[in-house]
């Protein structure tokens, strides 16, 4: 059951997108997210959809795999859609008991749903094509340009990479503790939600204790290996911008330009407002 967790999943296919510098991908994704919130008509969404399709095709990641990422957030999307559909005042086009569906509500609901889906798909393409290690390296570099965060860039990325290193270890441990508690007669399957939550305590306590012990031992081992923070530290694999990164920067600016253009299109697509 614990093997199904998909946090930070990486799907290696060896495509050009996989080989891009993580920094390029991070900047591209950031630009993409910002643009997503600037779009104000369906033309923009159409253009974004095209960008996503092209990127997905180049990345060689199966479409089904990407769609699986949306599944987990279906509830949030539905909630947003429903709220927007019924709560927006305007021209009533249909009524459902005391609730009115307005034209404006329909428009906002559609946009929000598309925005969320594109957001999830776009960011999951980044995590699917970038190994967690590259991702943390890229983030460390990016954080150097953010005031206040800059000072802790190294520490934060070290923490992230250690967390990634220990996810499988702690998963195994959880599995082992669960089995041990089951062998002692613990019940995790039945009962209402409160008693089930209570039943998790015999798993969480040993897990936390062992996590603290591991953290302590790891810290000692790191010090024994001369770890003393980010100062004067060198790296074996340095990040280098290649030609393919330069090309994608050009493409990124073209995307930004294209999306800005779509916001200026006055001609409505489907919606008459």
């Amino acid at each position, binding site marked *: 059951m614990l093997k199904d967790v998909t946090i930070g999943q990486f799907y290696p296919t060896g495509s050009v997108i996989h080989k891009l510098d993580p920094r390029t991908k991070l900047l591209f994704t950031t630009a993409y997210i910002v643009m997503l919130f600037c779009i104000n008509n369906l033309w923009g969404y159409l253009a974004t959809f095209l960008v996503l399709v092209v990127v997905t095709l180049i990345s060689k990641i199966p479409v089904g795999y990407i769609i699986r990422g949306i599944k987990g957030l279906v509830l949030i999307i539905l909630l947003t859609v429903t709220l927007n559909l019924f709560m927006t005042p305007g021209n009533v086009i249909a009524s459902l008991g005391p609730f009115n569906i307005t034209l404006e509500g329909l428009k906002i609901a559609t946009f929000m749903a598309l925005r969320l889906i594109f957001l999830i798909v776009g960011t999951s393409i980044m995590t699917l094509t970038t190994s967690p290690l590259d991702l943390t390296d890229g983030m460390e570099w990016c954080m150097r340009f953010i005031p206040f965060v800059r000072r802790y860039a190294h520490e934060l990325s070290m923490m992230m*990479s250690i967390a990634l290193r220990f996810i499988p270890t702690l998963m195994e441990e959880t599995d082992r503790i669960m089995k041990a508690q089951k062998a002692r007669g613990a019940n995790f399957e039945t009962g209402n939600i409160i008693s089930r939550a209570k039943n998790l305590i015999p798993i969480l306590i040993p897990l936390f204790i062992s996590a603290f012990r591991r953290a302590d031992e790891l810290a000692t081992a*790191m*010090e*024994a290996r001369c770890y003393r923070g980010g100062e004067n530290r*060198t790296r074996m694999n340095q990040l280098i911008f290649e030609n393919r990164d330069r090309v994608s920067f050009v493409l990124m600016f073209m995307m930004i330009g294209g999306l800005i253009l779509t916001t200026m299109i006055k001609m409505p697509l489907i919606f008459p407002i």
Partner: protein
Amino acid sequence: MTMEQKVKMIEVRDVQFVYPGNNENESVNALSGVNFHIDKGEFVGIIGHNGSGKSTLSKLLNAIIFPTKGDVIVNGLNTKDHEHLWDIRQTAGMVFQNPDNQLVATIVEDDVAFGPENLGVPSLEIRERVDRALATVEMQAYAHQKPHQLSGGQKQRVAIAGILAMEPECIIFDEPTAMLDPSGRREVMETIKKLNRDKNMTVIHITHYMSEIINADRIIVLDQGKIVMEGSPESIFKNVRALKKIGLDVPQMTELAYELRNAGMDIRDNILSIDEMVDALCR
């Protein structure tokens, strides 16, 4: 080691270590009056029962903790001298008991690179060192694997490679085999012996498995924070009764020889291996 003059790698001078507690009664005296030295290229085994102070001793040698009284000198540098802290930790590398809790990175070769990266070694040289270290422990094939996909013995060999990449002169092994299965234990022991034999690495092996140190140059026995015996494996292990008294097991064959002597048989008391036993019996 025979021809050249013996050079001291580590010197422990009248060391006492007290774990501080809230008051006088609660503080624990882990080591007291410990004196010994280790020569360059030597393979020294340190054995002792749980709570004998052997883990405390190992941490003192690597400047992770500092003696309450006395001095620990590593390659001529006193661990109390905080200026040389990093030089000492680089000179005397340390491999710990739990293989999972000493691997930092998500990829094997990145983990091996962790030490030299901390030392500020240039990128290209780190690459060379990592490749060399992984070759020494015969783990090149696993360079791009994730640590959690490896067996315990393999993880421990990666941990050894991580230390080797820092190019130390001495490695302290703090019960590196305690959490491994027999085959993992064999892998790790072969690697350690190879380092001492082929690379002339000074090795301090802390363990409670006697069988792992029957080939050591010297053995130090700790009990309740004091050195109770010191000498060659043969001279140590023949004291069957004294070792058993402090909760240690002697190698099987040594114990058998001891029992045979007690039963009136004329047999040497310094037998360590099955081969020696066969020789002695078939005389």
